[in-house]
């Protein structure tokens, strides 16, 4: 194995631990990524020495905390190519970011009878908030189907767009089948039809360089914890003219301009959408996390390693009799494998594999309508990061084969 891969892997303390006396093989990266030394160090340092609230006091600790917090925001803006840090709103995660748009954008811009278009492969976080919006504002939800291998059916999508759609909400990369959606094509078609576009980037942010400027999306949401940062911090990017027009989400401290009992005016972007004390240390940790993520995305060695590992896993999975992985051969699939195996309940298999040190996800993966198409018992998902290695694929396959043998 390349020394660069080994060095990179060694930056994640969690990856060198043992579970049940066996080396950990962590293949649940689509749920959350492990954290590197630089993020752990900053979070510990801030917890120990820079514990102060931001934007409020003039003392040293508060100034330091505010500075680090702002660096996190600027890092996030730079990472996705946002024109200004003011268009990067801190939320608790992708889910909160989508809920914010479903609440505030819908309230301001949509009318009864307007339509919101999602796809069949969305995570519940990009489905349920729109059901809420439809209930509250009388809008209607349309769902574009995916083909057998998990690709969005673009013909069906274009047809649905003609039906008075005002907003399209779509995943950058789908969380079950790992398929990269053709965002440029989707966004251009939506804009031509007069619809705005929100991109759920929870999975997409990890494996591809995002530039919200060239994408021309209206909103882009992602979570820190899928890309080396701690849990509890997420980003909502939005076009300035939309964010300016949208009403605030929550009322409280830090989001106001002037407050009287009669009337309150709101603060400038992004503060208007950030009522209350945020997850300050986690926000600050976006700076080292995204710096590392950019290095990883630019490293040919690490990307080659991911590709080699992915290809090996794809080849090996196809040797298991009765295994069905809908997107296995889809050229747009990236780092994620969801599959079911005839005669084997995925939860049974995962529990046995866990005892062999292998971590995977099973069940309905927050995408129940999609998974029910393939299996009534849910599926198993293995998801990779550039720190995973071909050696780990061997251990994973040994565990999977053993589980299948025991269970059949």
């Amino acid at each position, binding site marked *: 194995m390349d020394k660069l891969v080994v060095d990179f892997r060694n930056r994640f303390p969690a990856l060198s631990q043992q579970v049940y006396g066996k080396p950990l093989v962590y293949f649940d990266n689509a749920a959350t990524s492990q954290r590197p030394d630089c993020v752990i160090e900053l979070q510990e340092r801030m917890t120990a020495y820079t514990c102060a609230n931001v934007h409020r006091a003039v003392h040293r600790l508060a100034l330091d905390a505010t500075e680090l917090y702002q660096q996190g925001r600027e890092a996030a803006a730079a990472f996705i190519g946002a024109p200004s840090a003011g268009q990067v709103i801190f939320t608790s995660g992708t889910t909160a970011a989508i809920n914010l748009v479903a609440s505030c954008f819908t309230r301001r811009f949509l009318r009864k009878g307007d339509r919101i278009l999602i796809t069949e492969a969305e995570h519940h976080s990009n489905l349920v908030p729109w059901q809420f919006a439809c209930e509250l504002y009388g809008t209607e939800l349309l769902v574009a189907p995916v083909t057998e291998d998990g690709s969005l059916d673009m013909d069906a999508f274009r047809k649905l767009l003609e039906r008075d759609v005002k907003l399209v909400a779509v995943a950058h990369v789908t969380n079950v089948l790992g398929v990269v959606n053709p965002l440029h094509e989707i966004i251009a078609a939506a804009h031509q039809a007069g619809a705005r576009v929100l991109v759920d980037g929870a999975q997409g942010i990890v494996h591809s360089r995002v530039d919200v400027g060239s994408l021309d999306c209206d909103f882009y949401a992602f979570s820190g914890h899928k890309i080396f940062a701690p849990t509890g911090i997420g980003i909502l990017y939005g076009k300035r003219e939309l964010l300016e027009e949208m009403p605030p989400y929550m009322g409280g401290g830090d989001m106001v301009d002037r407050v009287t009992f009669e009337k309150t005016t709101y603060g400038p972007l992004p503060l208007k959408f950030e009522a209350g004390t945020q997850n300050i240390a986690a926000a600050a940790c976006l700076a080292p996390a995204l710096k590392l993520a950019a290095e990883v995305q630019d490293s040919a060695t690490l990307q080659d390693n991911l590709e080699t590992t992915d290809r090996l896993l794809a080849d090996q999975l196809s040797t298991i009799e009765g295994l069905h992985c809908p997107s296995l051969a889809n050229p747009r699939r990236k780092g994620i494998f969801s599959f079911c195996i005839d005669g084997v*309940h995925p*939860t*049974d298999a995962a*529990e046995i594999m866990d005892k*062999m040190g292998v971590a995977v996800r099973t069940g309905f993966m927050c995408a129940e309508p999609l998974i029910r198409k393939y299996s009534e018992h849910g599926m198993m998902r293995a998801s990779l990061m550039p720190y995973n290695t071909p050696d780990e694929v061997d251990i994973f396959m040994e565990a999977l084969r053993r589980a299948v043998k025991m269970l059949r």
Partner: protein
Amino acid sequence: MTIQEISEQIVEEFSMFDEWLDKYEYLIETGKQMPAIAEEAKTPDNLIEGCQSRVWLDCRQEDGLLHFTADSDAVITKGIISLLIRVFDGQKPADIVAADLSFLDRIGLKDNLSPTRANGLVAMITKIKAYALAFLQKEENEQ
């Protein structure tokens, strides 16, 4: 045999295995050997809520003793419920209601189950005890 005696027997059997994988192997084998539940007994009433996999549990009374049959779509779950059935099948309702189930801790089952499966285990025990309690109350009403 009494509930207590069967429980002790199970603890002894599990103590033969050092590795958790071997304990799973054993659970899976007992699950596979469990007699099948009648298809018509797979009713919504017999379905246990709170399990990640689906579990049906049916209970009949014969000569004052309770008899259980069950099924699940997951084999490990079947193994777990077959242990419970081995303990409770053919026992008196009063004994089932009063039963001490600490043997599950002693074989390490509770500690090593995933939280969703542990919830499922609690749901199975609750269902078995609820059946026993219902029959017990019926007996008392008849007396």
